[in-house]
């Protein structure tokens, strides 16, 4: 029972956090049905599980909220701020009940009639809904349960997850040891084969276990809208809140560590950052302030940016406060740089508010925020525009997250580089690289673009291993951030691996050269290089600005050359004949088993993946083996052209002997002294044009009235959909959208017909009943589609 209760509490806490945010979003846009449905579903879930655990107060509260929301869904009630506030009050009461439940294990005694009453009192308000929601068929319990299935999950304690992760990594290490022993003992091929299979499944398992720890950062953002709404109301400020980048994934444990700092920063923004309304007006700003929280992945870090358009920080005011709060002395204040003045807010004992408010002054200051972030290897950065707003950037490493890393060697040792910041890898001996020594520094010029060159051994303070083969030395073009790039020279490139990154010990992180440690498959720890830190350690300006050189000119020349030189793909056909086709019309060369080709309606088709494409062939080619197909692509449709083999890619000669009549062969060219027939993709595509309806900006909605025997659904609807219509039948509605045209069968006059929608009537008999009969024989496809087209066009004009 305790386990059940714990699961319920954990789930409910999550739901309540989500519901708060969803309610606020819905309040801003009451017409958003999906938002309303989501909230309804959340409350419904709580009601369901609380009933099962016999928690009468929780059940009553969630029932009241569910009821009120259902009224809105049915259009009997308006969605207004009062209602949202009342529902939020219930959400709060549920939260405090759950907290009490967690402490005592019992539902405390108490009376909830105040919050439930508030909800009912709101109900007595104006009867006419402010936003008339269209009444629709409500979701039944079955529907909701069916929807629940799609996001079913189970809860697993984090330590268990960790132990699984450790276990799997141990298995990997043991496997590697075992693999080495197997190799040395010269084991049987069959033993090695079955060991390889084991190996593969272990690798797969490791991958899944690592993914188990990842969570979308959405989870972190979901309670924020609610916090913003409540605070803004308390302060009488108007705030537009938005989040983006919710799809970025972050390790669960990391998420826990950022939650409080993030909430604190958002609170601060509303309390201190955003000015009161009159001040905003005086400053010429809009009454609505905006706060924007966004997340993005940048290399091996996650960047969370909180931006407000408030008053920003005033360095001088900060200094004055710091002196009066005795954080710094007046003498020290004089020596501060502008940046250091801003960073006073991170000093312990500093608070920017003139008075400590109930909201921001909870004993948590920016010093705690900074300390918490540093504990997990993160940094806080301030971007201040005095008078115009403050942006706080939280950068946290993706510890314990999987990154794709490039393994490189320097002075006999392996290091990892995050693959995401690698732009290009070249051999130092490559023709496209030129290395110059300029005034003691080194410069790599790659295809006309110059990069400062760092040698990894020098940056790390190691000696270059002379026994290394100089021909292996490689240059990695690294772009640690936007607008910066450099060339990193390493002794050799090894391979790339999926790596689990963990933070290194603080004194190793403090070198600024490493972003963490990882344990690759060979069981020897490897240091992950901090590509930004290397740059800082080398003290090189890697800004891309001003070193474009003649790159743009070269690019233009290259493009011009490419324009002039159309390329030709030479291939051999099954008959042995050599033909060619312009490379640019080929999407790719596909190799499919012969069984993927089949004949249908007199034409040969190929099934590739889940799609079916026409094939230019008179018959399904005989022969059991695989077939190579050229995929010709005209931007919209695909045609497959079977070939025996690809021969070469050559430059298309300027002289083409054109064919006299249009056909498969556009002409003949001489390639290496041999005549080659040139395929005409224009003609080919015309032969196999799928005759698709012109793409419509909006697909018209077609309603099938009354369809008792299912004829319309089974026979008619597929034709209509193929012709580019969306089809609804009977009482279904597509989000309350008005149909553009409706179809009904003449013989079934009982069908409900909307008066203001153009109507096409269908009859079962071939012949019309009289001259006035405008109905259409139901199997006359051409007439039917034409009638629909004219009706829809008529309605639109």
């Amino acid at each position, binding site marked *: 029972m305790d386990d059940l209760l714990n699961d319920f509490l954990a789930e409910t806490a999550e739901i309540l956090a989500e519901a708060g945010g969803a309610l606020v979003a819905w309040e801003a846009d009451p017409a958003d049905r999906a938002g309303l449905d989501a909230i309804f579903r959340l409350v419904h879930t709580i009601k369901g599980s609380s009933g099962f655990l016999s928690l009468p107060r929780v059940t009553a509260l969630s029932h009241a909220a569910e009821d009120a929301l259902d009224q809105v869904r049915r259009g009997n009630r308006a969605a207004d701020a009062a209602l949202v506030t009342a529902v939020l009050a219930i959400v709060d009461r549920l939260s405090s009940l759950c907290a009490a439940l967690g402490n005592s294990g019992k539902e405390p005694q108490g009376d909830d009639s105040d919050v439930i009453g508030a909800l009912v009192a709101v109900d007595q308000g104006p009867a006419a809904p402010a936003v008339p929601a269209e009444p629709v068929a409500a979701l039944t319990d079955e529907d909701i349960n069916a929807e629940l299935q799609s996001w079913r999950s189970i809860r697993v304690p984090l330590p268990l997850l960790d132990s699984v992760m*450790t276990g799997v*990594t*141990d298995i*990997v*290490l043991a496997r590697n040891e075992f693999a080495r022993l197997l190799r040395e003992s010269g084991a049987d091929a069959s033993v090695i084969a079955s060991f390889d299979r084991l190996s593969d499944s272990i690798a797969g398992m490791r991958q899944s276990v690592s993914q188990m720890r990842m969570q979308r950062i959405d989870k972190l953002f979901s309670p924020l809208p609610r916090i913003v709404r409540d605070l803004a109301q308390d302060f009488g400020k108007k705030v537009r809140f938005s989040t983006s980048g919710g799809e970025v994934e972050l390790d669960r444990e990391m998420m826990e560590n950022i939650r409080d700092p993030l909430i604190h920063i958002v609170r601060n923004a509303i309390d201190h950052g955003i000015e009161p309304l009159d001040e905003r007006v005086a400053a010429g700003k809009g009454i609505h302030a905006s706060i924007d929280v966004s997340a993005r992945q940048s290399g091996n870090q996650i960047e969370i940016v909180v931006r407000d358009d408030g008053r920003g920080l005033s360095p001088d005011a900060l200094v004055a406060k710091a002196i009066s709060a005795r954080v710094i002395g007046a003498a020290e204040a004089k020596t501060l740089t502008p940046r250091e003045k801003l960073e006073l807010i991170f000093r312990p004992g500093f608070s920017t508010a003139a008075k400590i408010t109930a909201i921001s002054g909870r004993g948590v200051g920016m010093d705690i925020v900074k300390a918490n972030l540093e504990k997990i290897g993160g940094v806080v950065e301030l971007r201040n525009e005095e008078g115009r707003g403050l942006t706080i950037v939280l950068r946290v490493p993706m510890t314990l997250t999987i990154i794709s890393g490039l393994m490189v060697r320097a*002075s006999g*040792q392996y290091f990892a580089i995050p693959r995401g910041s690698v732009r290009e890898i070249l051999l130092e001996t490559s023709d496209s690289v030129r290395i110059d020594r300029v005034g003691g520094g080194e410069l790599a010029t790659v295809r006309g673009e110059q990069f400062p060159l760092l040698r990894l051994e020098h940056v*790390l*303070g*190691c000696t270059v291993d002379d026994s290394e083969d100089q021909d292996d030395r490689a240059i990695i073009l690294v772009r640690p951030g936007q607008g910066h790039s450099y060339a990193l020279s390493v002794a050799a490139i090894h391979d790339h691996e999926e790596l689990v990154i*963990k*933070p*290194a*010990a*603080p*004194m*190793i992180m*403090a*070198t600024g*050269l*490493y972003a963490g*440690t*990882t*344990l690759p498959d060979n*069981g*020897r*720890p*490897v*240091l992950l290089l901090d590509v930004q830190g290397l740059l800082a*350690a080398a003290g090189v300006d890697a800004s891309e600005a001003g070193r474009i050189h003649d790159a743009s000119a070269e690019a233009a020349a290259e493009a011009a050359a490419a324009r002039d030189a159309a390329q030709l793909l030479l291939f051999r056909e099954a008959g042995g004949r050599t033909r060619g086709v312009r490379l640019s019309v080929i999407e790719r060369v596909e190799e499919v088993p012969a069984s993927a080709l089949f004949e249908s309606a007199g034409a040969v088709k190929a099934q590739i993946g889940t799609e079916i494409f026409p094939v230019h062939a008179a018959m399904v080619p005989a022969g059991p083996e695989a077939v190579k197909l050229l995929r010709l692509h005209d931007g919209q449709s695909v045609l497959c052209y079977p070939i025996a083999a690809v021969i070469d890619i050559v430059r298309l000669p300027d002289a083409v002997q054109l064919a006299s009549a249009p056909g498969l062969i556009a002409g003949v060219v001489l390639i290496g002294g041999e005549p080659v027939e040139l395929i005409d993709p224009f003609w080919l595509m015309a032969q196999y044009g799928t005759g698709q309806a012109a793409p419509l900006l909006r697909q018209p909605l077609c309603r099938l009235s009354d369809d008792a025997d299912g004829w319309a659904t089974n026979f008619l609807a597929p034709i209509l959909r193929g012709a580019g219509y969306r089809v609804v039948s009977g009482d279904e509605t597509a989000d309350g959208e008005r149909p553009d045209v409706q179809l009904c069968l003449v013989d079934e006059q009982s069908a409900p017909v909307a008066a203001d929608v153009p109507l096409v009537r269908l009859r079962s008999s071939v012949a019309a009943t009289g001259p006035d009969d405008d109905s259409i024989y139901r199997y006359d496809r051409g007439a039917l589609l034409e009638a629909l087209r004219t009706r829809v066009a008529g309605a639109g004009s």
Partner: protein
Amino acid sequence: MMEKLYLIARIADTRVALRSRAINSVVTVGTPVHVPAAPPHVAGLFALRSRVFTLIDPHVVIGLPPTAVAPGQRVIVVDVADHGYALLADAIEDVCFIDAPETRVTGRLLPGWARVADAMIEHEGASLLVVDPSHFITLPVARAA
């Protein structure tokens, strides 16, 4: 009883007692992975049960020249602030209960030892320094600067 359990080891050429609750385990290491540009007392990294540990050379912390790590050398594994470290030990002697009370450090110690020693304890007719392994993790500020 755990409070009375001590690990007697030879660290940086000196016999010391370490409180057993501060210690995770004692293991042997192979060749550690060198960490370029790290502080001098970091002797490298090694992996143990899929965790990466930072190897600390106590000699450097005490102010002695660094020693090379011999393959199969025993190390004392400790956890400090959620990170795993291992102290290179010259020798591991014993794990034993010492009933005698810990006493204040008397006499003048070398500055290196004074920083890491918490107390002294009497064991089998000899006075041992009781050291806190976490003090070995950080270098004295003056040296690090």
